[in-house]
């Protein structure tokens, strides 16, 4: 293998690029495109340039999965997510359990025990009441399984062509009973990165469930409430630095958020990332990378390197972590980047997702 000298000109360009990347992003588009909702760079830019800009406050600023604050001595976590998945029902789940589990998970990765949820429904005129019942029943089951109660809600109806059947926004309140913020900024060199199971199953399931691609498979969504797994992990070790659920934008986006927030490099090993065989098949066929595909029941944890074994064992001992693996580690340099050691033995960057993972042909 060749030894490269430092190529000065290239290095200058790269430094310039990194400076450009660190500048406050601006929204250049005049109109919202689908990319702004895909969870990748465009979403981050929009949130940063519009919402953070206007709402700026210390609790919002870290842009974590939820906000943590104390009220009358009680330490709380608070989060929200809107669910607009299409189709509403898919193998392994539906918008209802997604909406419950997603908000439970955002609380869990704040280190909180989820307690109470709210649910806001935006229904499209013409939506079958039977489907709504099915969704509500699924939410109720998911809430019961997660030990949370849906305690307040709201229902709006929009005219035909102003919705897509049913959108749900859940918010959640949890209680923080442990020390540690588990924020993306807390990763440190020599930490290890774990994922709780195979990646990309939810996103592939939904993409295929739309039917437009005419691809059939046995993949089912991984939607699940992760607070039990998180608790098991935190019980096992004090070495947990960051917790995230890998949703929109997939594991790659989470890792980028961690690298950016903590100013470290995250280095993952392709062979170590668990991917179901058929998920990989679908991704190959569509020309997308499973690292960018959404999960709805997978935990990404950064743990003190010395605690890697303990953490992995704790995860694997939990039913939702049976497929857990250490997929990489944190390094000092290059700060803010995610690198992948490929199965082939090379090294490359894993950047944030640009727009939707569009099926690509070339």
């Amino acid at each position: 293998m060749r030894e490269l000298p430092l190529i000065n000109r290239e290095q200058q360009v790269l430094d310039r690029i990194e400076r450009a990347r660190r500048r406050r992003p601006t929204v250049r588009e005049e109109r919202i495109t689908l990319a702004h909702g895909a969870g990748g760079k465009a979403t981050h830019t929009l949130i940063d340039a519009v919402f953070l800009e206007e709402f700026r406050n210390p609790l919002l600023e870290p842009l974590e999965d939820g906000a943590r604050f104390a009220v009358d001595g009680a330490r709380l976590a608070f989060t929200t997510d809107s669910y607009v998945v299409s189709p509403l029902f898919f193998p392994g789940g539906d918008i209802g359990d997604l909406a419950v589990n997603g908000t439970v998970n955002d609380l869990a990765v704040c280190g909180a025990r989820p307690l109470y949820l709210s649910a806001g429904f935006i229904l499209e005129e013409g939506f079958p009441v039977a489907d709504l019942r099915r969704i509500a029943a699924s939410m109720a089951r998911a809430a019961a399984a997660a030990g949370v109660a849906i305690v307040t809600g709201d229902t709006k109806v929009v005219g035909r062509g102003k919705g897509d059947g049913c959108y749900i926004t859940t918010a959640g309140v949890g209680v923080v009973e442990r020390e540690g913020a588990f924020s993306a900024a807390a990763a440190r060199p020599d930490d290890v990165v774990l994922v709780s199971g195979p990646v990309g199953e939810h996103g592939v399931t939904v993409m295929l469930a739309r039917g437009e691609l005419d691809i059939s498979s046995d993949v089912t969504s991984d939607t699940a409430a992760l607070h039990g797994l998180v608790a098991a992990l935190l019980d096992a070790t004090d070495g947990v630095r960051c917790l995230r659920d890998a949703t929109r934008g997939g594991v790659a986006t989470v890792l980028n958020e961690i690298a950016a927030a903590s100013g470290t490099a995250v280095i993952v090993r392709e062979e170590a990332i668990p991917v179901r065989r058929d998920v990989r098949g679908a991704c190959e066929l569509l020309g997308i990378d499973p690292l960018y595909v959404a999960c709805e029941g997978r935990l990404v944890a950064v743990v003190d390197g010395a605690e890697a074994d303990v953490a992995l064992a704790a995860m694997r001992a939990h039913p939702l972590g049976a497929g857990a693996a250490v997929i990489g580690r944190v390094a000092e340099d290059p700060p803010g980047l995610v690198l992948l050691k490929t199965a082939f033995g090379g090294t490359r960057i894993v950047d944030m997702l640009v727009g939707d993972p569009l099926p690509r042909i070339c």
Partner: protein
Amino acid sequence: MCLGIPGEIVEILAEPDLALVDVSGVRRAINIGLVEEALAPGDWILIHVGFALSRIDEAEARSALDFLEGIGQAYADELAAFADSRIVEHDVFIPRPADLAAPASAAE
């Protein structure tokens, strides 16, 4: 150029020129009208934008692979003769091998 993916024919479908193809566990109907030779379940094809572009020639593949693996073996033998730090460079990478073994449920 342009993404081409190998897939295995599972079934020749009733519709003209269509075959059900398996790609690593997922299935799609693929148009096989561009392939001259008769195809049958078990044949592998190269898929591009929903069409089979060619049948994969397993004998050709085997002999090419034999060559590559031959090179690899020869190299491994050479290296076995002395401890080479380069191999270490690749392997001494946190996640220890024990952790990397994909667990049963996620096995590919």
